């Protein structure tokens, strides 16, 4: 691997990307914890029984939590590019790999949230009518 140091303009951009990666991980983390806590400790929140489809829909939150983990890891790598000297390309490749995993999980999460949005609408309608 070639020893290469990015110029200051690129470093500024990597710093921004690291900050944004950490930023997106926060709502993903809160969403995952909030939804999964409903599933694990339903008695803390609800006086009604949530439909079983909620458990299936929580797969989206698991993917969200994994995405948050990878976003944090990618953020750490991009920060290292700015802070360290000489191993920028290696760190960029690792950071991109983490970002790829994070975006894959985010993509699955968004597809599942779309499905969840529709499915829970029907499920809760049944709860209201039943």
């Amino acid at each position: 691997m070639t020893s290469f140091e990015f110029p200051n303009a690129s470093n500024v951009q990597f710093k921004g990307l690291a900050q944004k990666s950490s930023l997106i991980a926060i709502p993903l983390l809160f969403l995952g914890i909030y939804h999964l806590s409903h599933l694990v400790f339903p008695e803390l929140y609800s006086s009604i029984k949530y439909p079983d489809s909620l458990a299936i829909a929580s797969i989206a939150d698991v993917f969200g939590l994994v995405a948050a983990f990878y976003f944090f890891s990618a953020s750490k790598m991009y920060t290292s590019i700015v802070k360290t000297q000489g191993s920028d390309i290696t760190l960029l490749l690792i950071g991109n790999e983490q970002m790829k995993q994070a975006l894959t999980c985010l993509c699955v999460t968004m597809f599942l949230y779309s499905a969840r949005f529709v499915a829970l609408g029907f499920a809760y309608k049944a709860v209201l009518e039943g």
Partner: protein
Amino acid sequence: MEFSDVENLNFKKLSKVLKFLPASFLLFALVNLLSSLRPNVLQQLIAGAPLIGIENILLIFSCVFAAQGFKKASSCYTLIVETQNNDLSLLTSAGQQMQKAITWSSIVLAIILVRSIQFHATFDLMPK
């Protein structure tokens, strides 16, 4: 500056994943748009916070902007692989687009979180 084959392969993989993201965000926007155009159970439930309000409009626009950002970033990464020069400036452009897309995605997720809290709060107050 020109990246090596190993680095180009890395960018190619990232570009491939980025191509799928706009579809997921646009699908989510579409589902929300349909729910606001046609009143459904969700809108009846969240009293005082109608989904057709500013929150829903912001959500739909954020999804569209995020999708646009990811698409542009994907194009930049593809260009890095395909072209022979300007790799560094293309990498900077891709990074900028990624930053924009991630910011809009964060807004989308924050709105989902707020909406989810409203949604559960409504249900949790219901009698058994």
